[in-house]
């Protein structure tokens, strides 16, 4: 029995591990900085040596609470850590301190735009804290290596695991949700969102069911999704694979599959029969975490405006098109940049255009650090647009000025002044140039008089050239028209 094409409904849930932006690890004081020499950021605690004990990093708890509150979650007044057991050499204690029955927070949600543009609320089942494991380095490939080395720098780095409800309905939507989630983390300042360095990792659960039916199909977990693109591609592959199997009347097995980006395919890692028994039990070395309501209230009071709210406000307050608002709110740094510029010079649309078409060509808009380092601060960009609006320079000249600004970090006024780029708007001075152009181009004058209106453009061009672009083109055009008609 095979179902007609398109008869399957896709059901996706995501599990996202976000590395929290704390200076020190989850349970010890070692640095979390990325890229240090192997095992240079370790101590007896994160090496799991005999006799050591964990101590909870308060900042990590704060970051997870901030995220949970921002997503409308219920932060449990008391949560507990638990040990999750399995043997693997990247995990020094052969158990991971995580949370199980009493997570930090539950029942949150994050809205995204649905396919029809209407908001879709994607539920978040739980949000909890855990420690990261180390990294295995194989000499050659895993299969052929004679030896493996372990780098424990990452061991004990704080992770926040967020588990969505199976509310996502397409690979595209899953990728969009992950983008939106990442933007929220960046806004909250709790994660740097760097997927290449592994600061943000995603596993996906996907199953198919007959459209219009309730029970969930057999689910498959896909691991190793380290970019938005891979999330979407892996899910697309898996949806096709499952649909083909189901169409062919095969039964799917519940299993964990690994995404191989090079081969653009998922492959089986382990099936349910070989699933681990993690033997969770409450971590006896850590008392339950009782969160002070006053502390929670303080964190709640300090929450920033989130991307979707800000996007809406940009449309309403600045009259921006939705497209502009979406782009400008992709990171908190970029939105701050824009608003600072608008406060300095109230031309919201022009500033949006300059940021979108010029600035973002030079900088990634979701890179908070790059924006912070941008040689053109918002005040300078605002000043540049003001020079155009006040007809001090033309838009064309302004683009050249911006190139210099990006190179030198100087304010536009300084550059315009030093390079003598101030637009000539003095009709008297321009009249001299117009007269010279008319005298030097008798043919153009002749053409104009024969009724070839376009000939005036050649004369305006000649004046602009003579002024090295500084002449105000509107005034030049008026003067040329006047003189030719009069003559």
């Amino acid at each position, binding site marked *: 029995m095979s179902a007609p094409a398109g008869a399957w409904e896709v059901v996706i849930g995501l599990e996202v591990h976000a590395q929290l932006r704390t200076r020190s690890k989850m349970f010890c004081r070692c640095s979390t900085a990325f890229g240090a020499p192997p095992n240079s950021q370790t101590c007896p605690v994160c090496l799991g040596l005999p*006799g*050591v004990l964990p101590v909870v990093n308060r900042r990590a708890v704060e970051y997870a609470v901030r995220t949970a509150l921002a997503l409308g979650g219920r932060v449990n007044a008391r949560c507990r850590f638990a040990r999750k057991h399995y043997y693997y050499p990247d995990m020094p204690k052969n158990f991971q301190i995580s949370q199980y029955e009493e997570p930090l927070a539950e029942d949150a949600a994050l809205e995204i735009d649905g396919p029809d543009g209407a908001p879709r609320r994607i539920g978040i089942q739980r949000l909890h804290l855990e420690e990261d494991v180390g990294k295995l380095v194989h000499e050659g490939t895993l299969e052929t290596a004679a030896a493996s080395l372990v780098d424990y720098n990452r061991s004990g780095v704080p992770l926040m695991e967020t588990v969505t409800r199976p509310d996502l309905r397409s690979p595209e939507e899953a990728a969009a949700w992950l983008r939106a989630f990442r933007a929220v983390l960046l806004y909250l300042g709790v994660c740097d969102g760097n997927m290449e360095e592994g600061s943000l990792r995603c596993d996906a659960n996907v199953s198919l069911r007959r459209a219009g039916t309730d029970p969930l199909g057999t689910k498959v977990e896909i691991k190793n999704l380290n970019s938005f693109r891979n999330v979407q591609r892996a899910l697309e592959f898996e949806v096709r694979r499952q649909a083909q199997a189901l169409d062919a009347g095969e039964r799917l097995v519940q299993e964990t599959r690994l995404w191989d980006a090079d081969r653009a395919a998922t492959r089986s890692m382990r099936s349910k029969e070989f699933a681990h028994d993690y033997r969770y039990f409450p971590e006896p070395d850590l008392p339950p975490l009782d969160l002070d309501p006053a502390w929670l209230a303080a964190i709640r009071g300090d929450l920033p405006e989130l991307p979707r709210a800000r996007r809406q406000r940009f449309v309403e307050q600045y009259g921006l098109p939705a497209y502009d608002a979406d782009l400008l709110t992709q990171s908190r740094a970029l939105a701050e940049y824009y608003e600072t510029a608008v406060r300095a010079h109230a031309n919201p649309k022009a500033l949006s255009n300059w940021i979108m078409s010029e600035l973002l060509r030079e900088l990634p808009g979701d890179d908070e650090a790059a924006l912070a380092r941008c040689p053109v601060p918002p005040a300078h960009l605002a000043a540049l647009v003001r020079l155009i609006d006040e007809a001090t320079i033309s838009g064309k000249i302004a683009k050249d000025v911006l190139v210099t600004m990006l190179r030198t970090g100087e304010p536009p006024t300084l550059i315009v002044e030093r390079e003598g780029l101030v637009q000539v708007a003095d009709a008297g001075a321009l009249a001299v140039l117009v007269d010279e152009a008319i005298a030097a181009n008798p043919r153009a004058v002749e053409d104009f008089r024969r009724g070839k209106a376009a000939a005036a453009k050649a004369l305006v061009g000649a004046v602009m050239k003579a002024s090295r672009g500084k002449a105000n083109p509107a005034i030049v055009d008026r003067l040329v028209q006047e003189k030719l008609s009069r003559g």
Partner: protein
Amino acid sequence: MTTGAAAPSLAALAAAYRDGATTPTAVTEGCLGRIDRLDGRIGAYLAITRDAALADARASEQRWRDGRPLGPLDGAPIALKDVLCTRGVPTTCASRILERFVPPYDATVVARLRAAGAVILGKTNLDEFAMGSSTEHSAFHPTRNPWDLQRVPGGSSGGSAAAVAGGLALAALGTDTGGSIRQPAAFCGVVGLKPTYGRVSRYGLIAFASSLDQVGPLAVDVRDAALLLEVIAGHDPRDATSVAAPVPDYTAALGDDVRGLRVGVPDEYFIEGLDPEIEAAVRDAIAVLRDRGAAVERLSLPTTGHGLATYYVIAPAEASSNLARYDGVRYGLRVEGRDLIDMVSRTRAAGFGPEVKRRIMLGTYALSAGYYEAYYGQAQKVRTLVRQELDAALARVDVIAAPTTPGVAFEHGAKADPLAMYLNDVFTIPASISGLPAISVPCGFSGSGLPIGLQLIARALDEPTLLRAAHAYERATPWHARRPALG
């Protein structure tokens, strides 16, 4: 003092150092001399840190000479159970798997002893990973009871108890999970104190059962136990389960007055199977307390009998988790294998003794999916009941008086059946699973000349009352002054 004589108390020692009657070097050499002469027969030590001890003794001697001792323990030769991490000195847990493990750090209690000027003589023997009640389960050699070399010293802190009883150290630290300080103290005729759970830092104590383990002193008398507790107790930021409450002046709380003290005597501790000589000695001891002004009343603690079963679920469950890290990857024993799993299996098969393996299997089973609730979950509920019952009793009385053990020291090999061995802990376990402070003080001798222990249990953090009662009893009786004849 001469090298032949058994050791004086720590309190007497400090006075002798102050008066110049003896020196830390002389006393340390005395201990080392007794170790040389006697430990071949007793087997209390796994390692002697002779050179470091003599160097520390000389430094202490200088401080006393300068009139600037670090405190009453300055220059006191002390032995450490070999589960306490010592920087640069092998810490083996009496296990092959940690035979070559050299910790890069000192346990907090070790650091505190050093800061108080104590001289560390060496590391004492124990049942492997503190699992046992006879010190027969050491991977290296058994320890013998100084009162009768055919008999066990108790366990698991048997090495520490035998060292103190035999004058091979002036005092020692042990650890108590289900009775591992009190039971060997009773068997060896010394004072053994298990503090309130959380009173003493566990950082650097190689874990057996995290929710039960506690470090405590073994000493020749109650005052010495108080002196040691004063030094090792107190909050440790590295141990999240350590208690923040200030440390009282325990020695100031001593005295010989128990007028008004309410002493409860639980029926369930005087049951069939209790050695009649022990019952008689303990009842005499209670009569002594009454004669000194205490109000004695009978109590019923009906859930006490469930303590043993509860303990033998919880302790192995936690142990199975704590001991997972010994896999041959990072430190300690490694037995090479075909692949990773094979290496880990071979390492653990070769590295752990039979009792440790038995408990790992018990604990792994108790935490397994499908059995967790029936075993671990149920045990936690019973644990709560036992604690509530003891708390309720201790709301009526100040201390509970009972035997420490059902029998006196048994002969080596006499309890080959694990269950017979486990029954030894029946009287010590209730205080352990309730986290309450408890002490064993010598209260007489059997007809065959073996020591008998009186156990006192007090409210959480009420070590002052516990020590006061024990001290008053000790002052009224001669038992603590008796020493084994070792030649």
